[in-house]
């Protein structure tokens, strides 16, 4: 045994304590870094030296820096995040739809229809009155205007879904290519000793971000790389290659974007993420718009039917009350609805051209449409149809809100588990700090002893 051997042991002790302090310091420094997994210096006793039949310890070495992480929890976090983002997206969208369809107690399509019918009642009370006639036209104009603006607002929302998907696809493509770059870096560095822990954390953070948009499944590969599959099997990232998420307008479905990766359409197989939220809500918005068109179309039909059977103040047969639209184009009725009658005297309040101006029978018949179950295959009234439309929007909000809340709870508890495993604890680090500090001090003390020994030796 030589003095040098002692120096060597002392050096390894100093070094490993310093290394431990290093790792501890890094943990403390990153206590608030999102996605950071705590690290541990893994120490091991060096292989002992055999001399004269005895084994002598050779000091300590730092084997690796370990990243404390549970891959299973990572996957659960992605899944929960995808679910949560999907329903949060739906909740936000449906809340906008809800406030489009029912902006306030005072102004909504239902109350405007009520006012319109009331104007016909007032006209029936005084069929010759020009003020009453004017009021019918004003209320009709307000109602038509409201139909058009509702249709327009829904149309904006429907169009906005494509804008959203464009932005999301850009994000997905950026994330996929960054994950591929990370894969490459990680596999290059893994061959050189300790795994590149910070890169692993960063890659996990990228995948979690990706799970906000769609539904990644992660498969660990050799050499530290991961394969990222989306929509149950379509590879988005494979090794150091990423594939593009492509968007293509579907002319048969309102020009909505369909999504594909490497030519495989994944639109209908998406399992989560904001993109799925968009795909689900846009179809629903079209249904709401269709319902609105149906309501407008049946309103126009019923009013024109009765109005053209009556007589106006000049004894002429009533014209179409709302501008007639050729039967081929009825699907857009809420957008196109216009009041055809321009002059109050043209309102056909009478049933008999020889009983003017006091005949109010046609006005009464038209006012009676308020309570007539003539809408939706004679199953409901105009007001009832609108009420169930609003109720449906409310139900979608409620459903999405509940699921978003449940998704968030799952996500949070997964994050709690993940933090429990990977999160830095300052208390823990404080204790380690003490431990390494003491180890360092003791090693330094040992070195001074060795120095004394050497001085003694040299003085001989």
């Amino acid at each position, binding site marked *: 045994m030589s003095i040098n051997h002692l120096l060597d042991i002392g050096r390894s002790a100093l070094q490993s304590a310093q290394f431990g302090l290093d790792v501890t310091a890094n943990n403390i420094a990153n206590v608030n870094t999102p996605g950071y997994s705590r690290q541990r210096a893994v120490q091991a006793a060096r292989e002992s030296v055999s001399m004269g039949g005895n084994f002598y310890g050779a000091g300590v070495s730092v084997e690796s820096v370990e990243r404390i992480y549970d891959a299973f929890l990572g996957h659960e976090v992605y899944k929960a995040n995808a679910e949560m983002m999907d329903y949060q997206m739906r909740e936000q969208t449906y809340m906008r739809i809800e406030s489009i369809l029912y902006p306030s107690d005072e102004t909504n399509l239902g109350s405007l229809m009520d006012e319109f019918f009331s104007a016909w009642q007032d006209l029936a009370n005084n069929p010759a009155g020009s003020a009453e006639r004017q009021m019918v036209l004003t209320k009709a104009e307000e109602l038509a205007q409201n139909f058009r603006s509702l249709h327009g607002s829904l149309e904006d929302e429907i169009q906005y879904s494509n804008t959203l998907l464009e932005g999301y696809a850009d994000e997905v493509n950026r994330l996929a290519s960054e994950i591929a770059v990370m894969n490459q870096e990680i596999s290059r560095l893994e061959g050189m000793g300790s795994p590149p822990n910070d890169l692993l954390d960063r890659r996990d953070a990228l995948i979690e971000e990706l799970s906000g948009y769609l539904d990644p499944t992660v498969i660990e590969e050799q050499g530290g790389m991961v394969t990222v599959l989306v929509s149950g099997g379509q590879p988005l990232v494979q090794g150091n290659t990423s594939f593009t998420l492509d968007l293509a307008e579907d002319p048969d479905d309102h020009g909505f974007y369909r999504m594909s990766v490497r030519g495989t359409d994944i639109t209908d197989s998406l399992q989560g993420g904001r993109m799925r939220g968009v795909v689900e809500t846009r179809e629903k918005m079209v249904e709401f718009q269709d319902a609105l068109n149906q309501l407008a179309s049946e309103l126009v039909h019923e009013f024109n039917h009765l109005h053209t059977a009556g007589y106006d103040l000049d004894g002429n047969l009533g014209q179409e009350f709302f501008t007639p639209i050729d039967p081929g184009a009825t699907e857009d009725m809420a957008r196109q609805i216009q009041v055809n009658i321009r002059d109050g005297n043209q309102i056909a309040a009478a049933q*008999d051209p020889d009983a003017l*101006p006091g005949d109010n*029978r046609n006005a009464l018949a038209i006012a009676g449409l308020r309570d007539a179950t003539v809408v939706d295959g004679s199953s409901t009234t105009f007001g009832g149809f609108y009420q169930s439309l609003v109720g449906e929007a409310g139900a979608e909000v409620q459903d999405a809100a509940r699921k978003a809340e449940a998704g968030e709870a799952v996500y949070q508890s997964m994050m709690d588990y993940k933090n*429990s495993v990977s999160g830095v604890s300052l208390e823990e680090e404080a204790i380690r700090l003490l431990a390494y500090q003491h180890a360092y001090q003791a090693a330094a003390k040992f070195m001074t002893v060795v120095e004394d020994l050497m001085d003694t030796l040299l003085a001989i």
Partner: protein
Amino acid sequence: MGMRVSTTGLFQSTNRRLMNNLQKLYDAQEGVSSGKKLLRPGDNPAAFSRVMGYKSVQAAMEQYERNISSSRGYLAEAESSLQTVSNLLARSKELAMQGASGGLDADTLAGLTEEVGGIYDQVVSLANARYSGGGIEGARYLFSGFKSDTPAFTDAGVYQGDDGEYKVEVAAGESVTVGMSGARVFQGDVDIFAVLQDLEDSLAAGDADGVQATLDDLDRAIGQVSKHMAEIGGRVNRLDQTEARMEESWLTLETLVSDEEDLDLIQAASELTYYETVLEASVLSTQRIFQTLGIL
């Protein structure tokens, strides 16, 4: 052993709990300040649809109320016209009885004739009364049927209207006839104008028997007017009943709306206090935890 507590996790979860409590406090506050538990369809879609239905029925009731009040206006005008007509006919009968007793001098006869002539003019003018429809312009003739812009009778007592009688809706699907055709009221069983004309002519001619002959007709005329006044009374009654029934339904609807929509304020206020306390406690305990954990 429980879950390992990390600083990151502790910070995130306490933060989240604080935010949750803050959200609950905010919701409770929103409820108390609006007084409502049903603000948006999504709060309770089924209840919201019901409330919309109730409110729509109430909107219709407001209209029915207007219809009723406009009908009352018409009927009041008609009743007051007929009341005056009835008084005038009673006066005519007095005059006729005087004329029928015979032996009157020429001056007296001339005076009676003139008064009956005046009554005739007044009745024509009452039969041509107009109704201004609750302040809305477009005054119409009460007794012209649907031809409401044409005076009901000419000076000669010829009816120019038709037999249309307008109706109004006073409840969902329930109509009441309001209009009264002049033909029915003034020339139904008895032609009031012809009777008065006969009386005037007989008085002018000093024909006591002729005058005597009009007395029966005058009685029947008075009866005819009373019958129509009773009809008006019946209609007003029906309007009153409908209105009373509607007021009851209105109150029921108000209760229904309030049950669905309004917050139990006492409960809401105590909830608000509760969440305030909870939030305060969680802020305090959070501060404590982070103070205690001051090793580093």
